[in-house]
């Protein structure tokens, strides 16, 4: 994929935190000349209705992603370890707050 547009503006991935204390969440992408402009454009594009109070911008080219085709293998180690979940354990009748 070509990550820059005609004027060489790179592609940025945008993450918005909607409220203090919450995660920054991916909302989309846009082209901008630099990080400052990416933040300013993200403000106009993704927070016109008070959707955010903090913005992260990351060059799209800097993101590495796992391959969907490898998902089965990649996540296989977690498949047979149900004892990592609290519901795995048998609690005696009548025990409270556990």
């Amino acid at each position: 994929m070509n990550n820059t547009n005609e004027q060489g503006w790179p592609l940025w991935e945008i993450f918005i935190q909607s409220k203090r204390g919450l995660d920054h969440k991916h909302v989309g992408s846009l082209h901008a000349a630099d990080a400052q402009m990416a933040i300013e454009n993200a403000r106009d594009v993704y927070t016109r209705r008070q959707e955010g109070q903090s913005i992260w911008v990351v060059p799209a080219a800097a993101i590495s992603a796992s391959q969907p085709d490898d998902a089965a293998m990649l996540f296989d180690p977690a498949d047979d370890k149900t004892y990592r979940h609290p519901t795995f354990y048998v609690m005696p009748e009548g025990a409270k707050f556990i």
Partner: protein
Amino acid sequence: MTEVKNSQELFQAKVDAEQKIEPKDWMPEKYRKTLIRQISQHAHSEVVGMLPEGNWITRAPNLRRKAILLAKVQDEAGHGLYLYSAAETLGVSREETIDALLSGKAKYSSIFNYPTLTWADIGAVGWLVDGAAIMNQVMLCRTSYGPYARAMVRICKEESFHQRQGYEIMNVLANGTPEQKEMAQDALNRWWWPSLMMFGPSDANSPHSAESMKWKIKRQSNDELRQIFIDRTVQQAEVIGLTIPDPKLKWNEETMHYEHGEIDWAEFNNVVAGNGPCNKERLAARNKAHDEGAWVREAAMAYAAKRARKKQAA
């Protein structure tokens, strides 16, 4: 060959199981091409859609209406951007999609090739054109391609004010002076049929629909969506005392739907072919804006480079 077949089957199984397809997933080439065409056409429609409304920003009847119209047009620019970004995830560059619009190679919704002659047209566009677009967009929130569906969810959230502000304009005019009511009725008369055409050809003449349905790009047929739109809008017109310009419009007690007159598909095809009242004007305006903005885009890049150098020196 076996492998391709397996990928094809895996893909269809995912779609059938209502799992979203994401950018890095294997997908049939035709699925990718169809989406690139559809999403970029959709993006172009948002962008060209700013032109008929922009026509009235400086002449809005008061400051409230002007602020609303500005906000709406700004939303359309944002919607265009969400969609261009979604198209980019399919491997087509922004430059390619924009060039396709500017050169006239790509289509956009034909509705924007009609002129906005009076202030009432801004009401009719919001009520009818955005209303019809919303029908389609609500369906697309559940489309099978993840980035497209996510863009549509965001768009739908923002779009409902567009329809309501248009209906409010129509309501105020329809209950105003006789001249104002006449203006509202005239706008409805001109925008009604083109709005029905926005849903596309009738199902019998829609060759790509079956495949799009199978891939769950589309989930309801053109005629189904058109019918829901008609049923809802006729009632809304009655509430504000305007008349739908269709003498054959009739409530069918059995189907619980309105029957309507024949849509003039010759007109539709003619506008799609480039011969609508404003096709040339719209494309010329887009090209002019793009060309005249070239120096701004270059300057931004030069300024970014300067800022980077300064930062490095400090």
